[in-house]
């Protein structure tokens, strides 16, 4: 049975997850234009935290694009992630200016202290460690973004302390 786009969008997602309604709202606003794919992926990722296969297929169907194309676009861009992120995210800039100011030491010490590879989430799901290309804040090099807050001019020990603090705040909740 084929479903028209409007019917598909009007339906509650079979999983019953009402977060899909937020994606629908955006899709309606942009009138299901196919060239709104990237914006739609941004919205979907904001809503869900990451892009699961389910979400990608949902977007593909709503925009009437082949899932392969949606997947191809999503994987082209670095801001889209396909796995659930950890509770906390630590991103270390490894751009040229930050490298010159010792970014590698920071990555290495977080990696060792929390047993998490760059680009991965620790086994307990608490911390995601990411590296980024130049974040456009080189005047602050080395730059670390912890849970969305930008920190500059920190050495490895100071970053470790901040990460520890973030993890402990969580425990106190």
């Amino acid at each position, binding site marked *: 049975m084929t479903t028209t786009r409007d019917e598909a969008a009007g339906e509650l997602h079979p999983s019953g997850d009402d977060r899909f309604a937020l994606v629908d709202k955006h899709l309606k606003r942009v009138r299901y234009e196919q060239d709104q794919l*990237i914006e739609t992926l941004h919205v979907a990722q904001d809503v869900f935290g990451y892009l699961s296969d389910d979400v990608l297929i949902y977007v593909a169907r709503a925009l009437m694009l082949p899932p392969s194309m949606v997947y191809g676009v999503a994987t082209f861009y*670095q*801001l*889209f992630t396909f796995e659930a992120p950890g509770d906390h995210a630590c991103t270390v800039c490894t751009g040229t200016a930050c490298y*010159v100011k010792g970014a590698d030491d920071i990555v290495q010490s977080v990696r060792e202290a929390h047993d998490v590879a760059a680009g991965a989430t620790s086994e307990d799901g608490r911390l995601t460690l990411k590296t980024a290309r130049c974040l456009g804040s*080189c*005047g602050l090099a080395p730059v670390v973004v912890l849970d969305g807050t930008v920190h500059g001019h920190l050495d490895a020990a100071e970053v470790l302390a901040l990460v520890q603090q973030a993890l402990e705040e969580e425990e106190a909740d």
Partner: protein
Amino acid sequence: MSYPKVLTKRMEDHPADSHTIERYAATGGYAQAKAALDMTRDELVDIVKASGLLGRGGAAFSTGLKWSFLAPARPAYLVVNGDESEPGTFKDRQLLERDPHQMLEGVIITAIANEVHHAFVYIRGEYPKPARRLQRAVDEAYAEGYFGKGIFGSDYDLDVTVHLGGGAYICGEETALINSLEGQRGEPRLKPPYFPAAKGLYMMPTIVNNVETMANLPHILDMGVEAYKALGHGDDTGTFLTSLSGHVNNPGNYELPHGITWRELIYEVGGGIPGDRELKMWIPGGASAPWFNPEDHLDLPITKGDTGQAGSMLGSGAVVVMNDTTCVVKAAERVVRFFSHESCGQCTPCREGTTWLEMILRRIEAGQGRPIDADLLLDVSDNISVGLAWPPRQTTICPLGPSAVSPITSIMRHFKDEVMAHITEGACPFAKTEVPA
């Protein structure tokens, strides 16, 4: 020493509220956009041509000339390039965050000059805050009637859409950016036939200009061509923004007149090298630019011509300074790794070549280099950029591939001994890069 400020004047004089429409209005705001409505396309193009304004996105192409190439088909589009992803570059971010209306006034002027009724501003995905600032400014300007139907009470319609990218360096390349705006993968298109001015966004004639280029336009109309030219030095008119980073005491963005020397930039503006260490080399214009060194380049004036003659470019205005504790192999590996990671993969010399260059540099750095590796680096580079000439000759769709060759030629021409020492000693002589306090 202090230099005259033009683009950064408002944010310097009024740091608290330079981004608001009230402040912009109180300091002359939007008068030039309004005046542009009474001028013809030819008049505007001629003024911008005469001003000598060169694009600030990296290629330093004459903005007026670019506009004059716009094909006659309509609708035409304007796309402002705010992707700013060249490592070390953070000037457009400041213009967007601290003075978005200045840039938007430039957008209106450019739109009028090119008979554009819909402009897009493409902001780097990692810049959500500047994008929000810009969106707020756009909303304010719409509310005042500076955008929308019949701007400034005229019969000219102009819409502007802010678009957030997805995080890919290659989307800064103008045809990749256009693909990305269309919701596709940001893969560059082949030129010809896809010159944006002929077949750009949705295959229609399109002007692509950088954020800083836009920000210059209200000033050119306001002060006039002669005064604008006088701010610069010869063919390099106006001021320029540079993002200074790395081993300098005062990293940051600076607005400077063309024609000052690198020595002045690094030692006066930048306050010299921390810990009084020696300057070893610097990247004069973003990761794509071949490096400069103190023996040959410190007293060169900062102009397009002088930099080009010396075999490099001012590019995106990013200057990364490195002191004598920096290992050239590791630094080159870092830059090459960036390009290999950001290669979109369409062209074999770029996709494979950058990967090979990265691997060879990595093994040299690890002390496992073979004597033949030095030649191999140059050989692979030659396949990406034939003859290793400057400006580079391209075997690829876009200039990203050849950019990855810049650090290789830089280290092989000037620091070959250091590269060879890695190989003959079987170890990096700078086992660990010292981090300056």
